[in-house]
């Protein structure tokens, strides 16, 4: 039976992929990435936005090879297993806007769902508020899904159209290699690079890239998705994807203990703040946007790698959203929320609720 052709889609497969990420992410931190930020899709896309000069927050600018690896690793897996399916056309502008607000929400919390799990496994108790908020936002999303929310069907697209996002990422990689950071300089000919702060903390390019490629490959095969994990549990009572994030948290916790990176508490956690309400609400906004867009930020990268042009638009939305978040004081810092973070969360919820309420379409 073809059902079992993909071992990564089995229960053990998804747990194994979660476990592998649970080892590799803390390892990336050991090798230079910021605290409890071995991997953070939102933070790393924000760093890429900074590297390109879309925002000028000096401490968060770096062309993160992990993100590039995620897309290209997924592309390789999709091509190898004949799952590369160029497609597009399911309300791209809506997906762009959802990407923008997903990023804004994530930057109010200071992390995507992946980092929320990694923060928890590193002992950062503020992550609990974020994860609860994430679950709440996804739960709200499932209410819309039950009421018939649907962004419509995609259409088959040209192969070249499906390769646009991988090509952009390949271009970023070429820039990162041709224009390496100059020691002590905030900018070379092309790219901005932080000389202090989280953006200045990174594992060697080749290590980040190879681990990114490996995770991209595995996640494409297993369909690993942090948002889907909670959504499927709430919506269908299914635990399949949830086992994946459980595997990630447990193994990352053990790895952090082994590497001496575990520190329990609320105060003084790396790249985190202790404003519980905004940790909850920021992630709730992100969770709702992820649920309405059909995938966590990691999953959107893997989908973009297998030719999904709508997921690619969501990714671009997140990168632009990072620019907006830092240019207009919406993003938080370890000192707390930004001057306009509250307004951004309110506007974000309003926009997502309108999207959820108005975009219903009989699919059958």
């Amino acid at each position, binding site marked *: *039976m*073809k*059902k079992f052709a*993909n071992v990564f*889609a089995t229960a053990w497969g998804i747990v194994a992929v979660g476990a592998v990420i649970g080892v590799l992410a803390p390892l990336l931190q050991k090798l230079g990435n910021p605290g409890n930020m071995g991997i953070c899709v939102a933070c790393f896309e924000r760093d890429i936005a900074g590297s390109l000069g879309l925002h000028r927050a000096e401490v968060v600018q770096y062309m993160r090879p992990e993100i590039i690896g995620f897309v290209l690793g997924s592309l390789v897996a999709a091509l190898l*297993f004949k*799952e590369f*399916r160029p*497609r597009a056309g*399911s309300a791209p502008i809506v997906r762009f806007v959802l990407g923008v607000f997903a990023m804004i929400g994530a930057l109010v919390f200071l992390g995507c769902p992946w980092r929320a799990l990694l923060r928890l496994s590193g002992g950062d108790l503020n992550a609990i508020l974020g994860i609860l908020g994430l679950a709440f936002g996804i739960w709200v999303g499932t209410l819309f*899904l039950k009421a018939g929310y*649907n*962004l419509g*069907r*995609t*259409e*088959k697209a040209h192969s070249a159209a499906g390769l646009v996002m991988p090509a952009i990422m390949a271009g970023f990689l070429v820039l990162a290699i041709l224009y390496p950071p100059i020691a002590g300089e905030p900018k070379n000919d092309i790219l901005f690079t932080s000389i202090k702060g989280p953006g200045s903390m990174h594992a060697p390019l080749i290590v980040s890239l190879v681990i990114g490629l490996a995770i991209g490959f595995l996640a494409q095969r297993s*369909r690993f*998705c942090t948002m*889907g994990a909670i*959504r*499927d549990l709430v*919506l*269908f009572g*299914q635990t*399949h994807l949830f086992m994946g994030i459980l595997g990630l948290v447990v193994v990352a916790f053990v790895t952090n203990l082994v590497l001496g990176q575990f520190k329990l508490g609320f105060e003084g956690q790396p790249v985190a703040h202790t404003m519980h309400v905004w940790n909850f609400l920021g992630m709730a906004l992100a969770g709702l946007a992820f649920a309405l867009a*059909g*995938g966590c930020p990691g999953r959107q990268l893997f989908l973009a790698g297998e030719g999904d042009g*709508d997921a690619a638009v969501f990714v671009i939305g997140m990168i632009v959203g990072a620019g907006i978040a830092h240019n207009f004081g919406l993003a938080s810092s370890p000192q707390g929320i930004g001057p306009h973070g509250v307004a951004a969360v309110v506007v974000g919820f309003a926009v997502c609720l309108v999207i959820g309420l108005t975009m219903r379409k009989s*699919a*059958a």
Partner: protein
Amino acid sequence: MSTTVDARGLSCPQPVILTMEKIKELGTGEFTVLVDTDTSKENVSRAAASKGWEVKDIQPDGEGYRITLKKG
């Protein structure tokens, strides 16, 4: 084989939602789900199995798959 759910082009979790609705509506019997990605194929099969439905057959169909589900 008269009933078909067309979930092609729909993103997660729509194919599973449509399949679950049909399972609820029919109770027992047989129906076909059309999907266009391997992810949807796996998700629909897994969801149907969790409701006690048998994945009777999966055939390549154009760009995607034709999944036949059966119960009773």
